[in-house]
């Protein structure tokens, strides 16, 4: 018994050292090279640090979405991508909305929210873009929907645990200018609350 417990103590210490070593090794690439996937405090910090000029962010958020984002992460290696996650305002443990933007033709970063099954898929036109709107369920049979479209050389994907009506409103609020007359179609990326849409 004494030997078993003594072994347990040594083993626990060694495993603690191993996990610390793993985390140290995990940190090294970001210390020697910029651009690895990393967490940021704000969109402005992403712009400043990674020189990603345009970050598409909605200006409308429904009441159910908690501001600010629970996660802002971005990378430029191996390709530029930004992911923002939002939690439910009445349950900070549950992710309700995920927005990713990825340099084309790369696939979007794997999102925390995923449609387990797609029940309906339609083309949705808004502000001169054609998006793919999919409605289905996430893991716990909750209603989920996803909307994807391209903005110049960037692919945008939104996934939300809510009705498609809310998702469409969020997506539309990300685009401030219609695609016409050769104007760039980037949103301002400015994080502001729309009056009347927030608590």
């Amino acid at each position, binding site marked *: 018994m004494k030997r078993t417990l003594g072994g347990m103590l*040594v083993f626990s210490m060694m495993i603690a050292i191993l996990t610390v070593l793993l985390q140290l090794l995990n940190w090294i*690439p970001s210390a020697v090279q910029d651009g690895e*996937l990393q967490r940021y405090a704000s969109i402005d910090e992403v712009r400043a640090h990674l020189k990603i000029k345009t970050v598409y962010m909605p200006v409308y958020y429904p009441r159910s979405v908690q501001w600010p984002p629970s996660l802002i*992460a971005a990378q430029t*290696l191996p390709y530029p991508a930004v992911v923002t996650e939002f939690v439910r305002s009445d349950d900070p443990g549950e992710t309700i909305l995920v927005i990713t933007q990825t340099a084309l033709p790369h696939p979007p970063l794997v999102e925390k929210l995923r449609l387990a099954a797609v029940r309906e898929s339609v083309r949705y036109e808004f502000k001169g873009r054609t998006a793919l709107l999919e409605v289905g369920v996430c893991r716990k049979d909750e209603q989920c929907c996803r909307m994807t479209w391209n903005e110049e050389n960037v692919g945008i994907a939104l996934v939300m645990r809510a009705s498609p009506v809310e998702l469409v409103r969020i997506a539309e609020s990300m685009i401030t200018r219609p695609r016409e007359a050769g104007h760039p179609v980037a949103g301002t990326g400015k994080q502001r609350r729309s009056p009347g849409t927030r608590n």
Partner: protein
Amino acid sequence: MYLAQSFLHSLIAALIVDTALLAWKIEAPVIRQRFRLLVIVLPIISFPLYQAISPERSSALFRLEAYFDIDRWLHLELWGTVPVGVLFLLFLFFTAMVFILQEMLPIARHTLSSGHGALEGVRPEPESRVTRALEGLPGRKPDVFIIDDEAFAMFSSTGKDPAVYLSGGLVEKLTLDELRAAIAHEIGHIQRSRRPAMVLIFILRVLMFYNPIILMEFRRIVQEEEKICDDMASSITGDRAALAGALRKFYDDDGEDPAPFPSDAPRLRDRIEEYSHTLLIEERIARLEDPPGPSVNVSAVYLVVLVTILVVNYYVV
């Protein structure tokens, strides 16, 4: 992603298993082999298992909070030009080549040559020392053949008609008790080769042909197998000293008259192999002369190690 994660998971499993074997001073080869088997089996299933349990494990948030994300290293560019990922793939390719050249080709050659009756030997005379040694062994005995070779050699063939092969030089130099212990060791190999678990281990090992950690761990399992057969031989003959004596003669024979090598490279490689072989024999002799003490509660330790590997590897993406 599967290649990278299975490599990492096997590396971490190997570190955890070695730590456990040291921490709890586990010396019984059967138990050690069971622990080492975790290093081979878990990495094969861990990635799909984790993904099935938790699909968000590959999400950006999870990767950011993981203990270790191999993507960060694979995308790292050395001197701004060569991604580490390319070197990693080359490393796996090199391991696959070593596996083919050092493990698969010899097996294929052996299968082909044994099919053509290249393994020839004569049955021992009725009054010979080999026959007397066999008489002292209990149970059903395999066929024994003596091959015409002055060097020390002893091996067994398995399958439908298993047989033990002894070289003439070995028969001449071993005492009757040592000869009996040596044959009992080979009987141990024949008995264990009938276990489907051994075949399964080899199949799993083949599945991970690209993984250097599995390559190393499989060799360590084979070394434990030798010790298990030593223990079986000792329990059959009841004489640990005789087997230790036989091994010592093997060891002494290895040390003398090294054949000249045509160049430095093979000499170095052969010397390393010879050195590790000698180390293993020394270790086996030491075990036989000084048997390990009683083990700890192995089931509890096994469970702790299994859970630790699964939990730590879950956070390694």
